[in-house]
């Protein structure tokens, strides 16, 4: 259920407008099973690059499915999608795999990224610590999005406290399956990056 998107065929595949001259790279990170692939799929206007594989019994006792029992597939390389913001800017989305065994991929995926989205799930908040630490250490701007699958039962301030998140880091709620909601997260990130740049220029 969790990996179905609200409008799987919402936009017909669009070709990149010739006026685009600004390509922005965004990384989507977070723990195992939090909805990173779903988010990239929801917002991408091209057929997303998909590296999901069926989870095998070799993962019993390693890939913890508590709270995400319906999950059958997992990303093993990365997700890739694209969304055109306006006539001149296009976002390229790179979703990293969540499990520790794939962390070695992260630095390459992050290099050159304008910013990152950290997806969190309150059932498994601890899974996002590595992503947040890593981004802070790299000084990559990021926003944290609580993927609540449309059912908000946790206060965002509780989540901020539990994650020990810097007050300057935007924290918002989203439903990764919903295109508009997922797009809102990307817009929040762009605005955050813009304000950081403006601050630095002051």
């Amino acid at each position, binding site marked *: 259920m969790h990996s179905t998107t609200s409008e799987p065929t919402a936009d017909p595949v669009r070709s990149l407008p010739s006026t685009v001259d600004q390509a922005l790279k965004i990384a989507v990170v977070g723990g195992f099973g939090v909805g990173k692939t779903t988010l990239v799929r929801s917002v991408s206007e091209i057929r997303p690059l998909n590296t999901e*594989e*069926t989870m*095998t*019994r*070799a*993962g*019993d006792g390693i890939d913890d*499915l508590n709270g995400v029992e319906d999950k059958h597939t997992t990303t*093993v390389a990365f997700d890739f999608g694209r969304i055109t913001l306006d006539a001149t800017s296009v976002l390229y989305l790179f979703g990293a795999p969540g499990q520790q065994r794939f962390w*070695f991929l992260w630095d390459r995926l992050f290099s050159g990224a304008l910013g990152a989205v950290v997806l969190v799930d309150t059932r498994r908040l601890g899974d996002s610590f590595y992503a947040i630490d890593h981004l802070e250490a790299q000084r990559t701007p990021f926003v944290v999005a609580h993927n609540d699958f449309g059912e908000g039962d946790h206060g965002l301030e509780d989540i901020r406290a539990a994650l020990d998140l810097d007050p300057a880091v935007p924290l918002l709620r989203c439903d990764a399956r919903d295109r508009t909601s997922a797009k809102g997260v990307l817009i929040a990130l762009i605005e955050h990056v813009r304000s950081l740049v403006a601050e630095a220029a002051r």
Partner: protein
Amino acid sequence: MDLARSTWLLEGLLERTPGTRHALVLSRDGLKLCHTPSLKADSADHLAAIAAGVQSLAHSASVEFGNGGGGVRQAMAEFYGGLLFIVEAGAGAHLAVITSDEADPGLVGHNMNELVEQLGEHLSTPPRATTGTV
């Protein structure tokens, strides 16, 4: 999967293929299933994750640019100091081999496919049961 037998099969592959250094069977979601003793546990974990990612990307290339037949015959990487070969093994599994510079890529690929054809059923891992808790 019978671990001792599978490991023995992998060792046989290395013995009859000059220039090969390590062989590993991995699940398609990136976990080691068995490997030759030449490969330390940490390296085996790492190779399993790498090979799953490479195969998955190769599959995407096949979908985008292949003839629609689907599937990946072989993925290969040539780096300074060696080569990496990956082929599909039994259901849900891949076979990865690391060789030195001196290996004959044709022979390595041939021997890997031969092993898979003969013994694919030993080199497989089924999907997880539908209930997720472990």
